[in-house]
């Protein structure tokens, strides 16, 4: 059998070619149905179609080239890990999360079944040798945002180098001190891995680069406030998902072009859904590629998703890191503080997140909020009770959904979402 260029590369990376082939064959039709069937898509989405069309090819090849010339690839799981240190030291950070049921059976050979789909899918990618991004990375950086992940990282470390950052549970002075130390230790770890010093100069530049990308995403977020919405929620989600493992400068350029096109649309009153379509804000668990399930059900029912209050949404780009600091130590402290503002359900209390949801619902003129919870994600499931109370007080309708990556509850979800849209 003659291997294609991609297959050759995957085989060199230790990928299980047969299983991986099945995964890739399944992804094509899903993308075709969910994405390519949309009407009046922005031209700027062409880049993302191209990326997904060769999702384990082009970018992996770039990362390998980088590694071959001595560069390092740092894989992360969470928006808490300060990517600026990686860019500053010449390493490339990529996000590793996984969003498919395909890799779960492999994970369940080891992990308990009642673990959240994201943890299982991700672990299964490594165990089943299905993900070239894990294979190509030199260091996996975990964090203690949930107990399931925390323990999974110990098992993952049996297969590949893993470094775990401790995220505090409270934001008080003790928590802040702990986090600042963790950020400093991570900086040292990256310096050790790459053999490059992180300086005020290269870190300052990295901060500016990452901020530039955050600014484009904030701009996209504001454009989605328009009625009619200039872009579908599915497309906006995809752009966020891809940018979490793409080159920061390229993403900034791509998003800039997309935003310019969307600005033009907003000016002309052009959209992807009719004016007056019901507008939904999603809040809760992250959605890794190819988890487009909820957005697809909502948008197939005629409503439009106008925002994501999640780690694959606002929590990824909302807070900018302070620029213009010249002292390295102060810069690192300011960066640590920026990341501590991530309103993750791992914190107690986490009232800031409630303000974020209400603020986003108002800014984006959402008719209702759907709280999305991955089954067995206890922090978000419990915090949903607070979200429910806060939104009821604010007079914003809320629907709580708990699900995973499978399709077994598609009928149930459709009934709930249809009913919710009918009440708005």
């Amino acid at each position, binding site marked *: 059998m003659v291997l294609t260029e991609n297959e050759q590369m995957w085989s060199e990376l230790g990928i299980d070619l047969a299983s991986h082939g099945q995964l890739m064959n399944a992804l094509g039709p899903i993308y075709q149905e969910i994405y390519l069937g949309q009407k009046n898509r922005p031209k700027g989405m062409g880049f993302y179609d191209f990326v997904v069309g060769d999702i384990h090819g082009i970018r992996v090849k770039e990362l390998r080239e980088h590694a071959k010339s001595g560069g390092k690839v740092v894989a992360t799981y969470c928006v808490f890990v300060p990517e600026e240190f990686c860019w500053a030291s010449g390493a490339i950070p990529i996000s590793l999360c996984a969003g498919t049921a395909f890799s779960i059976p492999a994970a369940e050979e080891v992990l308990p079944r009642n673990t959240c789909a994201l943890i299982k899918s991700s672990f299964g990618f490594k165990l089943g040798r299905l993900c070239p991004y894990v294979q190509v990375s030199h260091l996996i950086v975990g964090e203690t945002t949930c107990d399931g992940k925390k323990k999974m990282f110990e098992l993952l470390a049996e297969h590949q180098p893993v470094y775990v950052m401790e995220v505090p549970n409270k934001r008080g002075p003790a928590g802040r001190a702990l986090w600042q130390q963790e950020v400093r230790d991570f900086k040292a770890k990256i310096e050790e891995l790459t053999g490059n010093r992180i300086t005020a100069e290269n870190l300052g530049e990295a901060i500016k680069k990452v901020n530039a990308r955050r600014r484009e995403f904030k701009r996209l977020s504001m454009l989605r406030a328009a009625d009619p919405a200039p872009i579908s929620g599915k497309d906006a989600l995809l752009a966020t998902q891809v940018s979490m493992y793409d080159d920061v400068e390229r993403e900034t350029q791509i998003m800039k072009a997309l935003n310019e096109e969307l600005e033009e649309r907003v000016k002309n009153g052009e959209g992807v859904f009719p004016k007056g379509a019901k507008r939904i804000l999603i809040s809760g668990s992250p959605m890794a590629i190819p988890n487009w399930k909820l957005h697809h059900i909502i948008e197939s029912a005629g409503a439009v998703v106008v925002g994501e209050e999640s780690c694959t949404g606002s929590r990824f780009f909302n807070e900018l890191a302070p620029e213009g600091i010249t002292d390295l130590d102060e810069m690192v402290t300011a960066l640590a503080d920026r990341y501590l503002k991530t309103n993750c359900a791992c914190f107690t209390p986490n009232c800031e997140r409630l303000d974020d949801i209400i603020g986003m619902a108002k800014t984006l003129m959402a008719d209702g909020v759907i709280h999305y919870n991955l089954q067995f994600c206890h922090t978000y499931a419990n915090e949903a009770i607070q979200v429910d109370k806060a939104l009821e007080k604010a007079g914003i309708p809320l629907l709580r959904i*708990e699900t995973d990556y499978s399709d*077994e*509850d598609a009928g*149930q979800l459709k*009934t*709930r979402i*249809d*009913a919710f849209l*009918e*009440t708005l």
Partner: protein
Amino acid sequence: MITAGLDVGSRTIKLVLFADGHIVHSAVADSGLKPVDRCRRLLDSRSFDKLMVTGYGRDLVAPGLSGATISEISAQAAAVRFLYPDASSVIDIGGQDSKVIRLSPNGVQKFEMNDRCAAGTGKFLEIMARALELSIDDFARTALNAQRSVTLNSLCTVFAESEVVSLINKGEDAHAIALGLHQAVASRVGSMAKRVGMADRLIFSGGGAKNPCLVRLLEEKLSLKITVPEEPQTTAALGAAIIASLQPPSPSTGERPGVRVP
């Protein structure tokens, strides 16, 4: 104008014809493996002007019959509003789902459904009745006549079934087991109802409402008086027909005279 409401559920299909504020016809049939054929047969030789389809099979059935669709939750709310204008909340136990709905003056204020699991549904009760070798009616009667109950630890259908089998093998009384099973369902549905917040006047619909033991246990759990409609199984179909009657005729075709289903 005559409107038809069709509720294509997981276990049964229900039809209601509604005209001038009255139910003029209603029917219930098993869903079977060919729900579309069953629907056609139910509609055969019936004339109506508009059709609204609800239930699990709504998207499967509606296009072929030129019907519109509505969720079961909106349909239940509309029917309960019509039957009991002073109603404020609804519990609906169907074959596959149990739902609780808090009504607002013009529709649904809040609702919850069981999470993709048979616990707390009609299906759970059916399987447990079978484990005790009782018909579904005898199962309810047996529970009602129990002097005491055993606590069932599992609500997972498969585990509950094996728990029942081991209780039988320990020589436990069927009455006590039957009551324990009903209590388990009432407890699950009751917790969901409390989360959403039920209030007077509470209506209990769906096939589950035909179970008098469940009605009594839910009344105790929620400390509320429950009203069961005369035909609790057909309320969603009625609601669909009512919603169809309230909707303006579609501008392109206007009101179609007597659509007859071949």
